[in-house]
């Protein structure tokens, strides 16, 4: 969901709600809208450069996190003796002021099951990388080779540490478009070997599901990425082949789960539920 032409308050409420209805499986890919065509659909502001819009996206990520925290987990008390449904000392105005917006809070939605639903940022381009390092739980990188992926991952982890984060709270996923074709065939050669090649839709892997498993295993072993984000070109055909071919092989090699040990998306990613910033600070309403 874009942060450029939407209301930060609405977006965080919708994402928190998706987390409630899915019992802790929501994620939100933050993005910006740089074109005048997109601006005209909304008619509120003109197109702006990616740099400025990503700065705003960072502020919106911050505001959303505060709004998700604006209810402490135990704010609902249902205390019949005092007639109080909530303990209002555990609800917080966030009073967040960004360069282009202000939001008062608290959210209308209680704190979602995951605390903070998973935030995803495509960190391939420069302006997004800073926001990814600071706020993303999952950073996507669209590159064709493991060496490039390793470099971006190292940069993101360093930057995350500079923002005071534990770099292990950031998952960097290689983002590939996959075309698994109809039969078992070798990966089509791209630049520098049998790996993906750059296309207008992003790095494209074309080959069979077995070779894709090889590629995933190799990138993973060389610590180029923490995992993959795969976009099948033909969802019906390719997803089937991914699950029955590639995933089965990775499981056989012990590289991928064989059951879900947890129930939330954070648990699938091995990420802890974040503490509530207001509960820690013990701040007043």
């Amino acid at each position, binding site marked *: 969901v874009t942060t450029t032409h939407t*209301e930060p308050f609405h977006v965080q409420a*919708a994402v928190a*709600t998706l987390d409630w209805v899915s019992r802790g499986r929501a994620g939100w890919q933050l993005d910006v809208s740089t074109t005048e065509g997109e601006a005209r659909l*909304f008619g509120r502001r003109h197109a702006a450069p990616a740099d400025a819009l990503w700065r705003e996206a960072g502020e919106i990520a911050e505001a959303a996190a505060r709004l998700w925290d604006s209810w402490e987990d135990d704010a*609902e008390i249902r205390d019949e003796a005092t007639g109080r449904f909530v303990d209002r000392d555990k609800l917080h105005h966030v009073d967040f002021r960004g360069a282009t917006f202000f939001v*008062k809070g608290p959210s*209308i939605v209680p704190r979602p099951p995951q605390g903070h639903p998973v935030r995803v940022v495509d960190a391939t381009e420069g302006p997004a990388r800073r926001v990814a390092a600071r706020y993303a739980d999952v950073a996507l990188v669209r590159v064709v080779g493991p060496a490039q992926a390793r470099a971006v991952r190292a940069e993101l982890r360093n930057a995350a540490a500079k923002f005071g984060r534990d770099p292990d709270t950031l998952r960097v996923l290689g983002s590939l478009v996959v075309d698994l074709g109809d039969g078992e065939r070798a990966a089509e050669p791209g630049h520098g070997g049998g790996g993906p090649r750059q296309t207008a839709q992003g790095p494209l892997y074309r080959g069979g599901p077995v070779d894709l498993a090889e590629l995933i295993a190799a990138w993973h072993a060389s610590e180029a990425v923490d995992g993959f984000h795969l976009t099948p070109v033909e969802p019906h055909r390719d997803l089937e082949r991914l699950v029955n071919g590639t995933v089965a092989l990775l499981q056989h090699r012990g590289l991928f789960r064989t059951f879900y040990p947890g129930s939330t998306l954070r648990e699938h990613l091995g990420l802890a539920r974040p503490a509530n910033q207001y509960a820690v600070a013990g701040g007043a309403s």
Partner: protein
Amino acid sequence: MTVRKRMHLAAHFPGVNSTTVWTDPRSKSQIDFASFEHLARTAERGLFDFFFLAEGLRLREHKGRIHDLDVVGRPESITVLNALAAVTERLGLAATVNATFNEPYELARRLATLDHLSRGRAAWNVVTSSDAFTGENFRRGGFLDRADRYARAAEFVATARKLWDSWTPEGVARPFAHRGQHFDIAGEFGLPRSPQGQPVVIQAGDSDEGREFAAATADVVFTRHGTLDAGREFYADVKGRLATYGRSPEDLKIMPGVTVVLGDTAADARERAAEIRRRQVSPQNALLSLEQIWGVDLSSYDPDGPLPDIDPELEPALARGRVRVADPLAVAEKWRSLSRAKGLSIRQTVIEASGRQSFVGTPETVAAELDEFVTTGAADGFILVPHLTPGGLDEFVDRVVPLLQERGAFRTEYTGTTLRSHLGLPEPIWKG
């Protein structure tokens, strides 16, 4: 032979208000999807027309602090309804969404998406606000003059319809452009025409402006419930306005929001109704109701004691995020005389004076009274507002719906698949 007039029924999720009783041991989560699913499935089991979610964009405050005596907090409506579309088959799904703090392209898209996911069951309850208090959560703040609320809402709905109509029924995308007082937008809409063509539009509110807006624009009016006579008057007034807009009376359904309490006998029902009222008006809520009339701090008063002698403050800043009564002096005087005449305490007065349930009785009498409202031209149906989450609709569906069906006053099966078909609304004409 005349066709027997059948009623429409909808269910309101028990919400952020003092109708919803949260102290009852049967009261469960107001947030968990399981509660929404239970109520929606119950409504669908009862062959209801639609399920309705309200909205609030700022938590209410009282004396500068978050109001804590009623249910607080709720999920965002359209996201909940998208999920409900997967666990229901026929039930209409209505979201309340503010026309002031949203933009047409985005909202039209979200509603069209709901209509696609539900295969033609989406509705939008259009509400407006203009207060700076709510505006503090949004980019533009309290940007809109109160007087312009309905003008913006009308232009919003017209623009949304333009977007919904921008694809041909054959699935060809065509560019749209709209330039008006409130919106200046152009481009291509991101979604094919949805199953209903245009989601159903609901309007809530009884003001003269609201009635006119409904007559010009809405498919359903969600109105306040009153006496049979008041209902007939409202019904005739609103239906009478339709001709001006080239519409016929059946193009707009009038559905008051009602509460129902059932019992095995009339006395049993009255007793249950009184118990619900006592739970709705806690001692703390009684004082708060009084403070909203008087406009001053009354926390030192005893809720079981007499009403204050002092007169209300006329320009208070006590309560924010809710509508204040129009004439506090008159209300205060009415409440005081009620208290004197019947010897009532503050809490008893509030219970007596406010929010009595609409229909109280045995399933047979309630069914007969509901039917009378519809057959005598006071309503086209009702939006039921249960007081309990999630079981608040169970008894009505189990005990009253079969009686309505026996009388021929309510459908015995869904004959169509879309909300428009349930409501008997014509297919919207594609304006191209």
